[in-house]
């Protein structure tokens, strides 16, 4: 019954894929924050966040994206987001995330976007 959340890491070419699973709220956001911080510390600055198994997100989860995006882009990297369920997508849209982040349909499309446009022009 503990609301499960986990981050699974994989790589593809020079990209890091972080797959989020479960419920991302104020309780679990620190775990996601740590996962991104570790990538930065290891100089992995091209991140794909795969949300295909993300069931729920609140502003605490969205804040994690906000906290790192400037630094990543300054260093030549980006966070690109993919595979949002309709429920999760609605939250990104209410807050205007599509203006600030590349949001794609799936991992392959996001890999392609990194090739075409390494940093989103905002």
């Amino acid at each position, binding site marked *: 019954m*503990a*609301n499960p959340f986990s981050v699974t890491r994989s790589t593809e070419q020079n990209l890091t894929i972080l797959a989020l699973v479960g*419920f991302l*709220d*104020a*309780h679990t956001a620190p775990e996601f*924050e740590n996962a991104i911080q570790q990538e930065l510390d290891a100089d992995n600055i091209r991140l794909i966040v795969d949300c295909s198994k993300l069931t*729920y997100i*609140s*502003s*605490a989860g*969205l*804040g*994690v994206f*906000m*906290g*790192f*995006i*400037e*630094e990543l882009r300054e260093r030549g990297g980006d966070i690109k987001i993919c595979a949002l369920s309709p*429920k999760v997508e*609605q*939250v990104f849209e*209410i*807050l*205007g*995330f599509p*203006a*600030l982040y590349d949001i794609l349909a799936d991992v392959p499309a996001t890999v392609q976007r990194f090739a075409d446009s390494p940093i989103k022009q*905002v």
Partner: protein
Amino acid sequence: MTFEQAFTLNVPSTTQNLALIRDFVNRISSQAGFDADEMAKLELAVDEACANVIEHAYEGEEGKQVMVNASFDDEVLRITVVDTGKGFDPSGVHQANLRELAEKRRTGGLGMRLIQSLMDEVHYEIGPGNKNELQMVKRLRKP
């Protein structure tokens, strides 16, 4: 139904209890007759309200209580989140836009905006250290 349905939940002020609070809201909004899309909005608005109480009103102190009152009839669902924490002036909160927040590397500042856009009515009654209430209303759309 002929009478108002009233529910109350009281939990310790830890983020671990947000999941319990969301269960509570989901059960009630389903009973009230909201569809899946509206249920998701209610769940999120109450989560945001309670996360703010835990983080800001109580400043992370875990021995306090978060209270959620919910009641509905054929027309509206009213949810009130109550705390006894430090309170604040909601009108004094600067609503930064997303780009500003990103530039300042702020991880916060999105919750109150979400609550506003998810609910039909939002009203704060602040009594610092005594009783602070966030009253939220969502109307049932007749099919």
